């Protein structure tokens, strides 16, 4: 290090000597710029600069780069999410539309079924009425048949009883004897 200062001082000394007539040299002399000190300061600044570059600037830059990257990633992500949100909203809208259509279909189905039900119950009522009429007709017919059958029975009975009474009185003894003989013959032949 000392050698380098010596070299730098010698260089500056040589330059000062050569530049004593130089305006820049005259400037340096007037403003009391000590060449050796100046070089040493420049060197020191250089050293500080290098140290800062190595130990401060680089990590800071690295950190800054990372931060920049994170921010850009974050922005990208936000963009992506925005897109996805848009897609999801679109899908939701589609689903809502489908659901609405489905609800409409269900409601139409229900209405159709309700109409069918009404028609069916009207048909059922008509059928029941018809059945009731038919049943009433049947019941009347049955009653008539029953009445005819009862009357037939009563009349048959009356006719039979009357006939027996009439025959008892009207048949002569001869006829009765003839019947009795004929019946015995018939039984014997059985």
């Amino acid at each position: 290090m000392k050698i380098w200062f010596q070299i730098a001082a010698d260089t500056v000394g040589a330059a000062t000597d050569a530049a004593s007539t130089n305006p820049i040299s005259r400037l340096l002399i007037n403003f009391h710029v000590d060449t050796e000190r100046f070089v040493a300061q420049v060197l020191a600044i250089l050293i500080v600069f290098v140290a800062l570059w190595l130990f401060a600037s680089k990590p800071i830059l690295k950190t800054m780069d990372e931060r920049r990257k994170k921010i850009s990633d974050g922005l990208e992500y936000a963009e992506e999410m925005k897109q996805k949100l848009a897609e999801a909203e679109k899908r939701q809208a589609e689903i809502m539309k489908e659901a609405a259509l489905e609800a409409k279909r269900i409601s139409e189905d229900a209405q159709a079924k309700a109409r069918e039900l009404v028609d069916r119950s009207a048909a059922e009522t008509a059928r029941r009425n018809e059945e009731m009429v038919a049943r009433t007709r049947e019941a009347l017919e049955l009653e008539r048949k029953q009445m005819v059958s009862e009357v037939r029975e009563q009349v048959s009975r009356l006719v039979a009883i009357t006939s027996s009474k009439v025959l008892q009185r009207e048949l002569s003894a001869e006829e009765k004897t003839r019947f009795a003989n004929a019946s015995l013959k018939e039984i014997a032949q059985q």
Partner: protein
Amino acid sequence: MSSIIETIENEIRNLETAVRKENIGHILSIADGVARIDGLSDVMYNEMIEFPGGIIGQALNLNEGEVGSVVFGDISSLKEGDEVKTTGRLFSVPVGMCLLGRVVDALGNPIDGKGPIEAKEFYPVEKIAPGIIPRRSVNQPVQTGIMSIDSMIPIGRGQRELIIGDRATGKTTIAIDTIINQARINDEGIASGDPEFRPLYSIYVAVGQKNANVARTIRTLEQADAMKYTIIVSAPAADNPANQYIAPFSGAAMGEWFMAEGKDALIVYDDLSKQAVAYRQISLILKRPAGREAFPGDVFYLHSRLLERAARLNQENGGGSLTALPIIETQAGDISAYIPTNVISITDGQIFLETDLFNQGIRPAIAVGLSVSRVGSSAQTKALKKVAGQIKLQLAQFRELAAFAQFGSDLDPKTKAQLDRGSRIVELFKQPALKPFSMEVEVGIVWAMQNDFFDDIPLDQITRAKLSLQDHLQGRGSSVLDSIKKKKELTDEIAAALRKTVEEWKQTWTND
């Protein structure tokens, strides 16, 4: 009026004037519906005997010097010394389609006030059952509409399936549900115009029941519009024992007419225990030797000859069938008593109803472990066979593991799954009275259970879920149900459509 006179004149013209030979006897004694008669030397066993006043009897005891006869009807007008005649005929009842919708007594006389029955044919009440050759195996189902029966204890046309249990366990309800479901199927089948559809006509024989119960049954059938396919033969508790004894045979004769005509009929005997008691009474009065529990020695033959008349005939003999559902009432759940064991050995299976299950709220209270159908899955539609094949086994496993249910937290996942599935099946099979399911709905619900759709539904909501699924199937899934009904089997296509429908329902289902 002129037609009446003509009728009588014709009657007189056609009168048989030939001498008639009769075989007569005189009543020696009469009591408790049984008459001892002197004479009647030409009478045959089971021949119809005519008493004064148009009362009919049947010769049951042909002893030396006297004949023992049961008297059907009111015996209060008969007395010692009255003349009785043989008729030369077996006791017969009117049969035919004209009996559908009517209520008749044990002799076939109408008691519903709807006028006389104009029957063209009469069948004898005692008839020899079809032999071996005319029969055919049972393979057509009788849909009872009760899910547990149709899945696990299927009944076929031509089968005899006994319904046995204590009083008030739901025996009659099962029979009535079956009749109502068959009427619904008949209506649908006839409306569809399918030429291959075979309606199933029903005959309900009420033996020894209270008149109020019979009236309630009739009203229930009328409300369900099932009376038009049903004949009711009523021999209530107030009837004399002879009527209660003969009523099931009269019903069987009416059923045999359908079978002989190539049609299908179902006959319910409710119940045969009371018929056995009535027969015991008659036999004791006829001084026949008493056997076990004072029943006569031929009480087995009483039921065997009745139940053997239910059969399925082959095509050469018309292809008709008569399915019998005899009902027996046990005392304190004792199925090893005399009459129950007799009838169990005669029938092709039994449905055993337990009071404990009934009281626990499991209705129908069918004890699956003790119930069986010897015809089995031959009498099930392919669709139901496919979905319900494993259910009986699952329930058996559940019953075996049920004892461990109290240690719910200590069970391995497989056992727990079996318990959960079993308890869900039990819950699923609960069904209110008079609400039969159609076959296709049964298939849909059981399929959903077997494919785990009920697994995440809490136990107390299974019933609600079942009804919700039924509504959904009958509404949005009606096309799937129609396919099942038409094809009667679960093809891959139908199964896929059913899965889609059930998944749709599941998406809308929420537990409470």
